């Protein structure tokens, strides 16, 4: 085994971990500022200039709170729940390509922890087990509201995963590869998938909102009906992990959407640059796209009211799945014509 490769991947993984957590922490701050802006308020402004230290104050508060376990809770599963939620949220970022290759100390370093040839399937696998954190946590709390939250989360996940998977298949058909790097490279030169597949993008985006439990699909933690949903009984850093995992998941799914539809690290005029300049610019382009997606997620949360549960199921099964299947069939027929497999 190449030691240099091992060290390089280790540094990249740690960097990714820190960046994901940092962005998630500051997403909470920007979410509150944005909510304040939309609702014509001031928002957090006490900790530091413009309230910039607010996420750190929140984190310290979470650690200092009493760690409470309900009497009849299943002790081990109660601890396991938030752990799984956080673990799965962080795992997904391993296959995301953050930029073009960078050259440091005479080594060419790929800005991607693992270039799996089944990258997108890996992400779907991790997303599909992400619901276990909520389900185990909600069940182990031994509280009816928590359990309702857990049941809602599981049925919502299963319903929206189908439409999400089918719309991802459309993108795979266009790019001809399952690896995320292949998908990004296929979109080189402003051939972004959003221009070819706007319907697919809409379906995928709605499903991503539902999969990350963001409003208007935050029924598992719907305050007005279920108190706190699956995390009703949680306190201290266990609650913190649940809330934090949602923001990490939002960051990762924004990154995924910018890879699948907005060309990932590609940017207009990127052929004029080369080497490390190109690498840094591509990382900057990628993060700009990701942050714009996060902004869109937050904008929707503070604009659209929450769905009712039957409306949610209706939208998932009777609207999104048929649309994505028809879209996939049309795309397949167009590809077959272009390749000359069908002739009149």
């Amino acid at each position, binding site marked *: 085994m190449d030691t240099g490769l091992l060290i390089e991947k280790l540094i990249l993984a740690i960097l990714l971990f820190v960046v994901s957590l940092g962005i998630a922490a500051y997403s909470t701050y920007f979410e509150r500022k944005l909510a304040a802006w939309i609702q014509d308020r001031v928002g957090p402004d006490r900790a530091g200039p413009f309230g910039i230290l607010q996420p750190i104050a929140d984190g310290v508060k979470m650690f200092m709170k009493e760690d409470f376990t309900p009497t009849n809770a299943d002790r081990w*599963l109660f601890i396991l729940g938030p752990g799984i939620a956080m673990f799965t949220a962080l795992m997904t970022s391993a296959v995301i390509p953050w930029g073009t290759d960078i050259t440091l100390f005479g080594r060419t370093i790929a800005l991607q922890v693992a270039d*799996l*040839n*089944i990258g997108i*399937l*890996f992400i*779907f*696998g991790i*997303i*599909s*087990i992400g*619901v*276990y954190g909520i*389900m*185990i946590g909600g*069940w182990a709390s031994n509280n009816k509201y928590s*359990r309702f939250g*857990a*049941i809602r989360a*599981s*049925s919502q*996940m*299963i319903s929206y*995963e189908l439409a999400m998977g089918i719309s991802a298949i459309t993108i795979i058909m266009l790019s001809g590869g*399952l690896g995320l790097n292949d998908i990004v490279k296929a979109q080189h030169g402003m051939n972004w998938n959003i221009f070819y597949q706007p319907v697919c993008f809409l379906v995928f985006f709605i499903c991503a909102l539902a999969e990350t439990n963001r409003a208007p699909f935050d029924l598992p933690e719907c305050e007005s009906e279920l108190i706190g949903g699956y995390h009703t009984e949680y306190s201290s850093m266990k609650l913190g992990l649940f809330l934090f995992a949602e923001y990490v998941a939002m960051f990762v799914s924004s990154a995924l959407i910018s890879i699948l539809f907005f060309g990932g690290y590609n940017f207009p005029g990127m052929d004029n640059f080369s080497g490390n300049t190109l690498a840094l610019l591509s990382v900057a382009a990628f993060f700009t796209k990701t942050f714009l997606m996060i902004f869109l997620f937050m904008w929707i949360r503070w604009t659209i009211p929450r769905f009712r549960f039957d409306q949610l199921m209706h939208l998932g099964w009777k609207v999104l799945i048929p649309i994505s299947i028809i879209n996939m069939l049309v795309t397949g027929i167009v590809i077959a014509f272009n390749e000359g497999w069908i002739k009149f």
Partner: protein
Amino acid sequence: MSVELLSLIIGGLTIGAALMVVISKHPIRSVLFLVVTFFLISSLYILMNAQFLAIVNIIVYAGAIMVLFLFVLMLLNLNKESEPKTPKLALFSSVLASGILLLVLIAAFKDSLRLQHVRLPQQKQIGLVENLGKLLFDEYIVAFEVSSILFIASMVGAILLAKREKPIID
């Protein structure tokens, strides 16, 4: 660490987790151990360089089917008090039936021990998604399509069963 040792360890853990599915008293714990079993089986697939099979196993079994199992179990609200007592005769017959199944499985798989020295050509790449796709859509296309018809038939059946109950509710 050699692949043989690793697969031996994972194989042992798989059997342990599968036993815990049967031994655990609480149904939800059984389901969770079954999820662990699926993950261990997937890691065995990865050791055989069959990444696609491994991840599909996780998506379909751990991600979808087991979530549905958990969903149903949570709705059922199983308690120790409400559980009906199993009669002795049923217990005995189920042990007998699963014993016979074990015997049949051993008889079926004992020949596979002799097959292990048969090496397939380019075995390192055989589990990758391109090769699997070419094999499925070329050599085994008939079997593949027939199995998809089977799936559609079962889906239509499920929808038919769900629809039939509607007039009774109204």
